[in-house]
């Protein structure tokens, strides 16, 4: 079943509306049913004491086992994520795989500033659409406004929208209909909207 399982695996409470926003964006962009769920446990072994961060790759492995029958599982957390070669990541996904994870940890500086919560929520939606896109086989997009644009910094996150550009949207449909996602070619000059 082409359902997306949206799983909160954070340590604190997600806060009002945060997951609902992700739910809306993901359902809209990928035109699939999205089920919101809260995991009773969390990926404890993902914590790396030396770095003081959580390994996103280990979280992905953990998420793969908790898909509850959905064909994609998107974990949302509030812990700081890393992959071994990088100081941090906003999220990670297996390319054409089943699992993706995104975190709010690096999406805002001071959550206490008024309006910062909404800003974090919007950034999270963008990164959620982005990481989930990788699981559908999408590569980074050259259109800085597309959700699939690479975002190595908050500046890049803020430059994009939580929506796929026309080319990435078409590509998603194509990939889900027939394609071998590994055969995907990147598009160099996607339609800017």
């Amino acid at each position, binding site marked *: 079943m082409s359902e997306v399982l949206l799983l909160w695996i954070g340590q604190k409470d997600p806060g009002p509306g945060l997951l609902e926003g992700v739910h809306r964006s993901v359902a809209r962009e990928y035109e699939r049913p999205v089920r919101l769920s809260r995991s009773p446990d969390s990926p404890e072994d993902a914590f790396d004491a030396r770095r003081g961060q959580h390994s996103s790759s280990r979280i992905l492995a953990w998420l793969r086992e908790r898909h509850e029958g959905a064909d994609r599982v998107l974990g949302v957390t509030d812990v700081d994520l890393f*992959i*071994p*070669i*990088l*100081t941090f990541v906003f999220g990670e996904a297996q*390319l054409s795989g089943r699992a993706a994870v995104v975190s709010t940890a690096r999406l805002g500086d001071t959550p206490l500033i008024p309006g910062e919560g909404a800003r974090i929520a919007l950034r999270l939606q963008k990164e959620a659409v982005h990481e989930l896109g990788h699981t559908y086989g999408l590569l980074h997009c050259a259109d800085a406004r597309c959700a699939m644009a690479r975002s*190595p*910094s908050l500046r*890049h996150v803020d430059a994009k929208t939580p929506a796929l550009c026309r080319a990435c949207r078409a590509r998603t449909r194509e990939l889900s209909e027939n394609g071998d996602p590994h055969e995907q070619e*990147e598009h160099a000059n996607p339609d800017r909207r």
Partner: protein
Amino acid sequence: MSKKSTRILIVDDEEIIRESLSGWLGKDGYTIGTAPDGATALKLMEESPWSILLVDLKMPGIDGLEVLKRVKERWPDTAVLIMTAYATVDTAVNAMKAGAFDYVVKPFDPEEVSLVVEKIVAQQALVRENVILRKALKKEYRFHDLVTKSPALLATLELAKTAARSPSTVLVLGESGTGKELLARAIHAESPRNGKPFVAMSCAALTETLLESELFGYEKGAFTGANGRREGKFEAASGGTLFLDEIGDISPKLQLDLLRVLEERRVTRVGGTDSVPVDVRIIAATNRDLRRAVEEGRFRQDLFYRLNVITITLLPLRERKEDIPLLVDRILEQLSSELKRQVERVSPEAMAVLLAHSWPGNVRELRNVLERAMVVSDVPVLEARHLGLSLQEGSSAAMPEHPASLEEIERQYIASVLKQTSGNVTHAARILDIDRVTLYAKIRKYGLKRAEDGEFEPATPAR
């Protein structure tokens, strides 16, 4: 160029680093390969070179610095990015000295690495583009002796090529020295008439009666000295092409005669009564504004229409400066063979001077400048000082080295223009914007004499 064709090889003994980096870069669409040590990396390079190498500095066996050195020796175009866990000034300096593109400290800041990789990709794209552009630079369009890379002239030459196949009259317009006769010859060579003669005739050089007899021929006794019958250019060009240069300069009577020939396809020799049929393709040329001459009543409208069937306009050199390097190459090649002196090229400074000049005498002037430079120099590379052109073109009255009188400057300038036009007084008068009679008067006044090659040169000034 597709990102897929950018091949990135990750060389690190730690599997987790290789995996995490290849997963991360793979999402950009690059083709990623991995090697656990230096030896494997070099082997993979041998098999098929990679465009970017990310190499860990500390590895057992061949370390990163050694991989870097060997790769740069064999594959200098490959960019090597050194990864290190502990950056010290020494490692950084050593890596950069050995030719690393950059070095990054593990773990990387995502933005930093993204930027470095993007920078490498962009730089390599530029190098490739440069190679392609260099190749394109060599690519020229050739229509017999006319060469160009200018899109505008290219279209003109294409038109000429098409026109060559038709029997229609062609009118070639363009400033003096733009190659009107060369184009006419090319059209003839490209036409079905190429086995028959190409006869060129300058209408400005001769008096009306002389031109008439030259064009149409004469019968014995037609005028004093006409001791026998002589065929004219029309008959000489029979079956071929007659090129009538400076058609804008012919007298009203000749305009009418020419119109008759074009309409009737028959000529009557001077002093003759019977007309003879002629099968000649006419290519006429002028640097005058014929349309204006028609409006002002100086040129017959009906003749203009007869001539103006296919009009080809040749651009002045200043409007196709991109052709200058190409023309310089070509002219130097020709002159080297003609003058039996090997000149390979002009220096970049000399090229800058050539590109800055406005070339009122067009390609002919360029040829003359280069020929002069070859004569005054004895080096294989012509320098700016050999050209005798001022870089500050535009501030046209450049201050001479030794201040001279106005008359002296005028004398020198007229001499140089006459040299540029190869002694063609009509062309020179046009460049100087004075009438021919005035120019002849000045030539006499300043004692400019015709040299053996037909060009004017200044007489040695009295000292």
